[in-house]
């Protein structure tokens, strides 16, 4: 066991994946609780597809993917939030529309310029090999920033998630905070999608929150448990993918799924 572990840590790309992945998983878990409770989890999914489109375009133009994707996804997050505010029903279809279009445009552009390379498959389903050193540093800095901001604004995020009209009525600028959450989500998704893949990243947002919602009764507990679940699931998933030689993103999702099923079982047993 320790041999495998030492072998694991001797690869620098695995070390990077471990650090960046754990940080991004934590960000996803914290934001995920708020997004799931506000019924915004579809936005996370939509944003990852937009991110895919943006990265494909960056690839075609030989630009650094993160620098293109982050601003594009932030703008889309604003847009989706606005559409969702106007109409819930239309919001859902608008998200589907935007995400499928982004994927379609991304695939088209890349196949026209470079052909369907492994890069595209990497963006779709993730790869831990694609990150450059600069990417790793940027990811660490940004995800730490997201974590710190979330903790600092925890009380405000709770109040707005719990009862937006009360928060607004008592003088909180709820639009500002919704945008704030949207920006943090956009950054987190772009950082995570390299490793997890555009198709799979939103599971990191949804699974830990749903798992802890099964058993916790306070918001604080849900947040803490989600973070713990997310980090552990990621580390286990990464380790498993290394030993089984399976794709990292998919393995992490499966490990989250197993935890979720476990918590469903715990909730069932508790009830009886």
């Amino acid at each position: 066991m320790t041999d495998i572990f030492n072998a694991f840590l001797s690869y620098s790309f695995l070390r990077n994946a471990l650090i960046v992945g754990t940080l991004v998983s934590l960000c996803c878990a914290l934001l995920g609780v708020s997004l799931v409770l506000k019924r915004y989890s579809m936005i996370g999914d939509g944003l990852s597809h937009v991110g895919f489109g943006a990265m494909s375009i960056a690839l075609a133009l030989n630009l650094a993917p993160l620098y293109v994707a982050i601003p594009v996804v932030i703008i889309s997050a604003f847009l989706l939030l606005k559409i969702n505010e106007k109409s819930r029903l239309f919001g859902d279809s608008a998200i589907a529309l935007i995400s499928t279009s982004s994927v379609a445009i991304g695939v088209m552009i890349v196949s026209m310029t470079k052909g369907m390379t492994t890069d595209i498959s990497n963006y779709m389903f993730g790869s831990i090999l694609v990150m450059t050193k600069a990417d790793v540093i940027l990811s660490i800095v940004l995800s730490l920033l997201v974590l710190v901001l979330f903790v600092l604004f925890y009380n405000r995020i709770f109040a707005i998630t719990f009862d937006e009209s009360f928060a607004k009525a008592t003088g909180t600028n709820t639009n500002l905070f919704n945008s704030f959450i949207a920006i943090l989500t956009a950054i987190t998704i772009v950082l995570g999608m390299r490793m997890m893949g555009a198709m799979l990243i939103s599971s990191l947002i949804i699974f830990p929150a749903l798992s802890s919602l099964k058993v916790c009764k306070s918001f604080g507990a849900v947040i803490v448990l989600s973070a713990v679940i997310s980090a552990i699931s990621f580390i286990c998933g990464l380790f498993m993918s290394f030993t089984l030689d399976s794709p990292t993103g998919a393995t992490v999702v499966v490990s989250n799924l197993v935890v979720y099923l476990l918590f469903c079982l715990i909730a069932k047993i508790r009830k009886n």
Partner: protein
Amino acid sequence: MNIIICENLSVAFSKTPVLKDLSFTVDEGDYLCIVGENGSGKSTLIKCLLGLIAPDTGHIVTEKSLFNHIGYLPQQTTIQKDFPATVFEVVLSGFLNDLNGRLFYTKAHKEKAKEMLSLFGISDIKNKSYRTLSGGQQQRVLLARAMCSTKRLLLLDEPEAGLDPLAVRDLYATLRKLNREHGITIIMVSHSLNEAVREANKVLHLGEDCSFFFGTSKEYEKSEFGKRFLGGQKND
């Protein structure tokens, strides 16, 4: 001194007028009761006062600082049934507008929140999950939260809904105390006319076809509006 001046306020939803040319004023220390039938626009008016709905015409003048001292109890909350939050977390979030750039709640906030819990007799369910409470208990939690967020003005939309008769009496006593002793201005929507008129010093009655009455409780009892509605209830 006027703290709210409402002038010729009109609100329509898809061309159907709900409020039309409504004017009234609220003074510091007032206890204003808003009455009227279902659908007469009471909740709409409260939302206008809070700035949650923008009026079509007319305007509401308030001191800007008033909004940092407002307590609000919505009629029906949009809070989802399955939200995980303890009673204490919910009540404490009433101090949101008192954070003033601070990031976390202070000890004083927590003490005051505990006071509010005992004021509404919910100290024993402090650590219970909000989603598992009865409707009446939830109402008390939200009232306690509203009390935390106010030093000056409390806006209540049918606060007695879902409370048992004893709790309603306690509620009225609490509101009276807040109004008389702490000088908090109260604006309350209510369907229990007789109690409301007895407790309040001013009445705003929203009637049919956007007609309305505004005046003191004494004037209300003598007015056409008052005679019809109060009389009707007394004959029951």
